[in-house]
């Protein structure tokens, strides 16, 4: 109960303060609409069905891009982390691509692949790849030698060692990488939808801007923020359910 209060109180206070300022006459209500108007706009977007279809479009792109980028990042990271030859072969390429701000590739992706879902998923996957790869790489390198030696005495299968020793030993780092990836996926979906799309929360924000519907814009922003927070919490919750031992690890 006390926790619930601590959680809701700041939100309620912010909303009340915001409502008062918006209605005080010091600011333009069109530029700075009160939360009550934003709520009405949100309700309008829900009943018109646009909110649901926007959410669905953005979420699909995020999930698909996150999945592809993470899978490739984990796979490559384990290889470069554990095998010197892979690290030597791939590091130069990856190191050159890494300093690029990922949003900088969006124009090129549009020229190459257009503005459909596939292109957006590619951009997101590209951006997610780097933090996941780097974290996995570091995670795979820091594995105590005793784990690997011990495993070798107990099994002859290198597949088993990869799956049951190297992967879990690197997992706390992998999870940290994917979590960074989630935040980056939200940036990428938003920017790529701004740059050209016909649905999604980023698209909605760009057209409300053109239509001067600040209330709808703020409603869409709040949804984007809420979605990001929920995604992160779901991820943390999911990894704890899937890997219960993770809570004991220091990272």
């Amino acid at each position, binding site marked *: 109960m006390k926790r619930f209060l601590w959680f809701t109180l700041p939100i309620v206070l912010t909303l009340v303060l915001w409502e008062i300022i918006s209605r005080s006459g010091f600011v333009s209500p069109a530029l700075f609409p009160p939360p009550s108007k934003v709520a009405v706009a949100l309700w309008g977007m829900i009943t018109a069905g646009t909110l649901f279809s926007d959410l669905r479009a953005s979420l699909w792109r995020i999930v698909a891009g996150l999945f592809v980028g993470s899978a490739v990042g984990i796979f490559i990271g384990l290889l470069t982390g554990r095998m010197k030859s892979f690290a030597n072969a791939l590091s130069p390429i990856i190191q050159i691509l890494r300093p690029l701000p990922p949003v900088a590739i969006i124009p090129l992706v549009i020229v190459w692949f257009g503005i459909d879902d596939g292109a957006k998923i590619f951009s997101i996957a590209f951006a997610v790849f780097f933090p996941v790869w780097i974290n996995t790489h570091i995670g795979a390198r820091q594995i105590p030698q005793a784990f690997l030696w011990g495993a070798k005495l*107990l099994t002859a299968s290198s597949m088993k060692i990869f799956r049951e*020793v190297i992967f879990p030993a690197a997992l706390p780092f992998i999870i940290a990488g994917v979590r960074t990836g989630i935040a980056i996926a939200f940036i990428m979906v938003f920017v790529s939808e701004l740059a050209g799309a016909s649905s999604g929360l980023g698209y909605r924000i760009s057209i409300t801007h053109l239509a001067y519907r600040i209330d709808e814009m703020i409603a869409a922003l709040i949804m984007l923020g809420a979605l990001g927070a929920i995604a992160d919490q779901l991820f943390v919750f999911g990894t704890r359910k899937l890997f219960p031992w993770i809570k004991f690890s220091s990272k």
Partner: protein
Amino acid sequence: MSHIAVKNLAVHYDGYCALKDIEFEAGKGEFVAIVGKSGSGKTTFLHALAHFIPFSGEIAVPKNVGMVFQHYAVFPWFTASENIGFGLGDKSGNERVQIVREHLKLAELEDKKDKYPAELSGGQVQRIAIARSLAHNPEVLLMDEPYGALDAYTRDKMQQWLLDVWATHKKTVVYVTHDIEEAVFLADRVLVLNHHKFTKEFMVPFARPRHEEVKFTPEFSRLRKEIFESINSFEG
């Protein structure tokens, strides 16, 4: 008949000489302890015996070797029973379950089988590590200060437990420790490693099965003192 035979062994870590002129033998079922100061090369010796690291000279050991490490003995992502079952995949499901059950019992952890190492005490974790090695029925068991991080009381109990286990399994054991009392209590023979070489060997005359009381006899103290002096008087 010697079960482990080492001739003219030397180990270098990028130029640094960690072991040299090492001659070593252990008979089948013998319990050999190695004592020495920190940095004398005890861990290095075990790692060479297990063929983990490059060395020069000859090492003859049986193929099936088990090892209990100084640190990071068990996998934190597996429960007690999963740790013990790791690597038993070539066995049939039934046999595997049977082996895990037996070794959980041996480790006295039947009621903790679904716990993760982080939820167990240091002594319990080391019993998992030892049970996991024994589950593979190794011919030789290499142990690197397995009780180094335990408090004295737990260590005493675990030493007695290990002697009981050893009495039933009769493995050849090479046991590294910096605790002379532990070495004398457990082993048939104690080797002193001084500055990268074995400098002295002591036979332990106490009858088995051994119990705590032997530690309080004058013979025990005398042997302990002799070993202590052979380590401390050594001028590298």
